[in-house]
């Protein structure tokens, strides 16, 4: 080795380049084009809400699922269901309690390919300081340097304590909530 001191550098360089090539692509979320929504049930009818503010740290490569990683932070106070009274109720202490728990956090690490552009991931959602496993199903469509990540998750609000007191009742405010996302990544 002494004879060729540069060789070790070369070796390190190859190693670094190789691991960079192997590591899943780091994407940047395009907030304007991206949407994080949910559908709840109230008085037997569905209603849709949007989270206006969230960040998503997405590392994803269909060829390197092991190195892929989602980290999403949602500003709970940015909820918008197109009715200010309902929004205030959702932000109140019995539901999201946004003063105490200003953000929700989702981390996904275990990804599985389901054929074609379909994937599933198992992640952990933390909401109101309660962490539970939440699987998501999604599609990933890459075109040149941008990609659409589109999927959904089913969860039960009471699993996270979203519904204290009167709000534990599920006849008029359903327990099932479907969360959907459409993310543009570049």
């Amino acid at each position, binding site marked *: 080795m002494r004879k060729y001191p540069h060789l070790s550098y070369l070796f390190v360089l190859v190693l670094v380049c190789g691991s960079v090539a192997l590591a899943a692509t780091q994407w940047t979320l395009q907030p304007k084009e991206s949407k994080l929504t949910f559908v709840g049930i*109230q008085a037997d*009818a569905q209603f849709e809400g949007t989270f206006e503010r969230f960040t998503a740290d997405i590392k994803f490569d269909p060829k390197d699922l092991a190195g892929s990683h989602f980290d999403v932070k949602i500003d709970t106070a940015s909820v918008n269901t*197109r*009715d200010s009274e*309902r929004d205030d109720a959702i932000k109140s202490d019995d539901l999201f309690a946004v003063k105490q728990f200003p953000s929700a956090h989702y981390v996904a690490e275990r990804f599985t390919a389901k054929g074609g552009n379909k994937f599933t991931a198992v992640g952990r959602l933390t909401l109101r300081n309660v962490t539970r496993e939440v699987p998501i199903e999604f599609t990933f469509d890459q075109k040149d340097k941008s990609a659409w990540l589109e999927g959904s998750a089913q969860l039960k609000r009471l699993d996270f304590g979203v519904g204290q007191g*009167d709000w534990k009742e599920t006849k008029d*405010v359903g327990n099932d909530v479907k969360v959907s996302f459409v993310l543009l990544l570049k």
Partner: protein
Amino acid sequence: MHLRNTLTRYGAVAQLFHWAIVALVITQFVLAERAEGLSPVAKIGILATHKSVGITILGLALLRLTWRLFNPVPPLPAGAPRWQDRAAHVSHFLLYALLFITPVLGWLMSSARAFSVSWFGLVTLPDFIEPNKAAYETLHDAHEFMAKSLAVIAIVHAAAALKHHFFDRDNVLRRMLPVRDRTPQS
């Protein structure tokens, strides 16, 4: 009792429509009154029933009017002053109109707050307008005004029927009831 109207009496179908709608309209006032001052969750539940009953009234009013098209109503008793005949026709027309207008306004005002209307959890009605706070306020006031007008005209209508029954001693009230006429005609 005949199913169809005769020349002197309302048939069983017309009577059923009439009294079912009476009972449901009274239910609506009770529910709307009770909803005031309830907790948000209880309010959602009671208003869900109010909306379902309202849509039922709208449906029954449509069926009733259709039935009426093929079933001429028995004429008003002969010999009444002309103004009374006119008052009866005008009030009947207004009652029908309000049975349509009031629930439709309620439906629209729900949509204006992004609360879709579900009919007893079986069907979710479409939203014909976009959520809009100002529109909601207007529609809410209009709904309430129409409901109050309906109550006033219905009370006058009932008072007139009672006047016929107790003062004129004719069959105007009896012909809308499953009882015999005072002076059997057949």
